[in-house]
């Protein structure tokens, strides 16, 4: 069980930084790792790799579609090609390239989308990726991973580099609580149990894992034992952990920093409805665009807080019948 520390004192780090650090390590270990970016080298933290391996790095300029298929070409001659930019542009801007070239061809292209979610803050809606998980999730052959903290970002970066085929990594701009550790196990496609409990299952990804852990504390104070699952990989999805959660807890709440439509919660529902239907509630962005503001203020305004998750849990439990 993970010990949750209060909001102020918990250590916070950036997932995009974990990505950058691990990419550098991978570059040192393997000659076939190549990295591309589109004029955002510093903000997606590929500068560490670029500085040490300038010959395996291409700054494509502000031309994401071109960058995507340069990565495709590199993969066709044996490279593991990572391209990194802001998640909105990495996905929506290149969607047809990702669909028809990368996914249909099952190419070894790794997409890193930073600035995922509302915590992107004051840049506003144009830069806050809130749909990209849905866009990536619908594509055959794609793996979709949302690391919850710095350490998980490092492990996920390594894991996607080792898995053949297209992968998408969602990274964040802001520092977020470190809820795992350097030596915590991580396996692509396998959710992680973060807290035991049998009254309700709180299934979260990314920054919402910490909020779900806080929600579980709130619920524990009311005598409700919540199970918390970190569903870092939403495709392929961990059917076993979800079906077990549904049958043992009887109610589920999902929480994500993404549109509810077509997001992680929808992916969970697709499994639950078919295999073990139980009451479900969804915490996420409710079919609207983001906006400018401090990231933390935005989480509160959009109802993506521990208290919102706890409230949804009470509702789901009540619906058990």
């Amino acid at each position: 069980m993970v010990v949750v520390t209060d909001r102020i004192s918990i250590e916070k780090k950036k997932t995009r930084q974990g990505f950058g650090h691990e990419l550098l390590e991978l570059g040192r270990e393997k000659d076939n790792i190549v990295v591309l970016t589109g004029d955002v080298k510093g903000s997606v933290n590929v500068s560490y790799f670029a500085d040490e391996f300038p010959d395996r790095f291409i700054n494509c300029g502000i031309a994401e579609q071109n960058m995507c298929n340069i990565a495709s070409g590199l993969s066709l001659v044996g490279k593991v090609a990572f391209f990194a930019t802001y998640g909105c542009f990495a996905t929506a801007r290149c969607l047809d390239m990702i669909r028809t070239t990368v996914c249909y061809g099952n190419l070894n292209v790794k997409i890193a989308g930073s600035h995922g979610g509302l915590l992107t803050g004051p840049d506003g809606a144009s830069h806050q990726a809130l749909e990209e998980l849905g866009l990536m999730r619908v594509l055959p052959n794609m793996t979709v991973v949302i690391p919850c903290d710095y350490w998980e970002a490092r492990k996920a970066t390594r894991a996607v580099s080792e898995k053949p085929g297209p992968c998408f990594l969602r990274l964040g701009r802001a520092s977020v609580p470190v809820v795992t550790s350097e030596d915590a196990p991580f396996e692509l496609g396998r959710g992680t149990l973060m807290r035991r409990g049998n009254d309700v299952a709180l299934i979260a990804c990314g920054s919402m894992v910490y909020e779900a852990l806080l929600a579980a504390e709130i619920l524990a104070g009311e005598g409700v034992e919540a199970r918390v699952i970190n569903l870092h990989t939403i495709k392929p999805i961990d059917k076993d952990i979800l079906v077990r959660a549904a049958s043992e807890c009887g109610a589920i709440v999902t929480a994500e920093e993404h549109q509810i439509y077509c997001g992680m919660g929808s992916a969970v529902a697709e499994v639950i409805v078919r295999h073990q239907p139980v009451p479900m509630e969804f915490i996420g962005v409710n079919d609207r665009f983001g906006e400018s503001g401090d990231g933390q203020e935005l989480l509160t305004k959009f109802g993506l807080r521990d208290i919102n998750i706890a409230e949804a849990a009470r509702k789901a439990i009540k619906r058990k019948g």
Partner: protein
Amino acid sequence: MNPFNYDIKQLQEKARDIRRDIITMLVEARSGHTGGPLSVTDFATALYFNIANHNPENPSDLNRDFIVYSIGHVTPANYSILAECGYFPLRDLMTFRKLGSHLQGHPNMLETPGIEASTGSLGQGLSISVGVASGYRMDGKPNRAYCIMGDGEQQEGAVWEAAMAAGFLKLDNLCAVLDLNNAQIDGPTDKIMSIQPIVDKYKSFNWNVIEIDGHDTEQIIKAFNTAKTVRGMPTIIIAKTVMGKGVSFMEGDYRWHGVPPTPEQGDDALKELGTTYEEWSQRLLSN
């Protein structure tokens, strides 16, 4: 008709005020873009205060010219100019990027009067302008479409799809302005992914190309007026500019692309621009 018709001297004074607005609102916001807004200030000011036909009293006036900032991130310049024109109160500038403000980090056409298109994802404005110019022409209207683009932005393929269409369609009611400051996020544009020879590129796409010093108001006005008289092809004004223009310690440095001045840097900048934070924020808040 332009509602202001400022002369050269008035335009230069207005541009200085707008630079003061930009620095002040960025210091207050504590985030945002500084370099690009200061490089577009002179020609964008001329566009709104002398050249374009627009109506701050009725932003959706059907007889207006259409101005789209394809570089959505230059909102500090875009918003300051709109506020100075009277589209909304100057005090709103002090809410830039804050929760609940209509002045979003990147422009939202549904919230801010005078914003014609929601941009922020680069490389989309020229296509929008081609659509607007085509629509005006279909309706037999004399109105024009203006599009402000960045030089890093020229790297987007969509820009060239639009450029091809505008040339082919002979859209002489379309005038683009390219802010050629040789700077983008990661470095000088000619070091990241050179767009040169940019003049030849546009010429070969069947555009009329006018090269100017983008900080020389006389050249700016002349170029916009010439563009109005050209027939049978769109015009692009290639405005050589300096990132961070007007603040000595910012000029020509790409690292000012996406960061705001700290309060201390803001004081220094405002001093160079002949005011203080106290004085200028008071001016904004009381209007």
